[in-house]
């Protein structure tokens, strides 16, 4: 089955690029190809100009269902990427603690995933991705299993972290509002086999407070424009 066709994209550093499209357009497949979790039948993935095959330390993945180890504490989960790299316990734990604080989970270091809410679990997933200090962060519908109110708060925090961390963020979502709110660039994919249908750069004043952004005319217009374009794919 052909999931994607003729995808040629670049993802600039320090920006958040969203892959958006109808369900089954291959956006998650594309993200997993970039992550090296699925081999591409043709073409190549370059990170900083170097061709990569398979997973690598310059890319970190944030999973839709969090993918936390239920038998490990928040601290061990966040430090797990570093543990796999063979870093010493004290060093990796101090790094993990820093990122746990950065995603707003201080005080929960010794809790287990089942003691946390969905939103908090995804914060653990995000901290784990930050902790390995990868250049590229791949986020696969990270908020789809998080309830609406937590999601809004989380989106605001993500924007703060994008500004803070200066990494390349590639974000997959099916929510138009979320895409427009969070992204510097939105890549719209067509239905299977997914092709790049359109690239949109929302013109939104990011320095404004979150509530102002959600009422910003540019924000609302972009949401509407994307919806008009995607409408034809919805059965």
């Amino acid at each position, binding site marked *: 089955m052909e999931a994607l066709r003729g995808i040629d994209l670049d993802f600039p550093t320090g920006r958040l690029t969203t892959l958006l499209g109808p369900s089954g357009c291959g956006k998650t497949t594309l993200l997993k190809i970039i992550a090296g979790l699925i081999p591409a039948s043709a073409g190549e993935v370059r990170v900083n100009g170097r061709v990569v095959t398979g*997973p690598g330390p310059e890319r970190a993945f944030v999973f839709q269902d969090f993918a936390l180890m239920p038998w490990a504490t928040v601290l061990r989960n966040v430090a797990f990427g570093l543990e796999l790299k063979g870093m010493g316990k004290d060093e990796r734990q101090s790094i993990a603690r820093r990122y746990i604080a950065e995603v707003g989970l201080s005080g929960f270091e010794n809790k287990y995933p089942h003691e946390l809410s969905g939103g908090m679990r995804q914060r653990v997933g995000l901290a784990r991705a930050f902790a390995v200090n990868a250049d590229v962060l791949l986020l696969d519908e990270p908020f789809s299993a998080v309830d609406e109110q937590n999601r809004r708060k989380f989106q605001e925090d993500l924007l703060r972290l994008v500004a803070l961390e200066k990494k390349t963020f590639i974000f997959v979502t099916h929510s138009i509002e979320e895409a427009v709110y969070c992204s510097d660039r939105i890549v719209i994919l067509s239905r299977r086999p997914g092709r790049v249908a359109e690239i949109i750069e929302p013109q939104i004043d990011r320095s404004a407070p979150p509530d102002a952004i959600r009422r910003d005319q540019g924000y609302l217009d972009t949401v509407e424009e994307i919806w008009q374009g995607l409408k034809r794919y919805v059965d």
Partner: protein
Amino acid sequence: MTILGFRVPMMASLLVWCVVWEAVGQSGALFLIPPLSDVLTAMVALVQTGTWQAAALTTLHSFVLGMFFAITAGTLLGVLMGRFPAVDNLLGIWVNIFVSAPLSALVPVLMILFGMGETTVVVTVFLFAVWIIVLDARAGIQGVPPSLVEMGRSYGASAFTLYARIILPAALPEILAGIRLGLVRGVKGVVIGQLLVSIIGYGELFELYSRNFDMTNFWALTLILFAAAMLLSALVEALEKRVDYYAGVR
């Protein structure tokens, strides 16, 4: 449970049955059932005899050996079947046949193959216990969320690390459940094996007491065995609870 507003503890029903047993035994109506008090006295005397201790040691030895092979091979096979569909297709049907087959019928054949000694008993324990361990380990492995495996791969885990730190811990609750069920079946296996071989360990004692209609000692032996099986199962269950707690909601 409450009766007439009184809280009755869980073990109360056991107490009732003990009293019934004692009453039937004292009445002398059934010679197969001696009074419970006699059985308990015999139990205390029995465990102090050299015969019992030697028999218990022999039995324990066969049991531990058989279980060791069953747990090792069962877990390994279950993991392979859970991970590789080809292995699953090849062996699945046999595991499912053996898990429900009346294995006692095979013991005479085993005796021809392995002789009238401990080997036969060890093999019997193995055959009784291994299949349920395979099935549960397989179910545990298949229940490991695919994203957890992808997580390991994306953060650079080698194949070995992936199994040791992600797949096996994630499947541990099911693997332990299989081992608990396997232990209980293994106890059956060791007794049946020894009974049929009938010249070693517990089987020899059972054979001796029942042939001489020494029901008091026969029941004492049976009670010890029941208690041992239940204790083993309870131990693994306690371990399972701890693991389940860590595994939390999955």
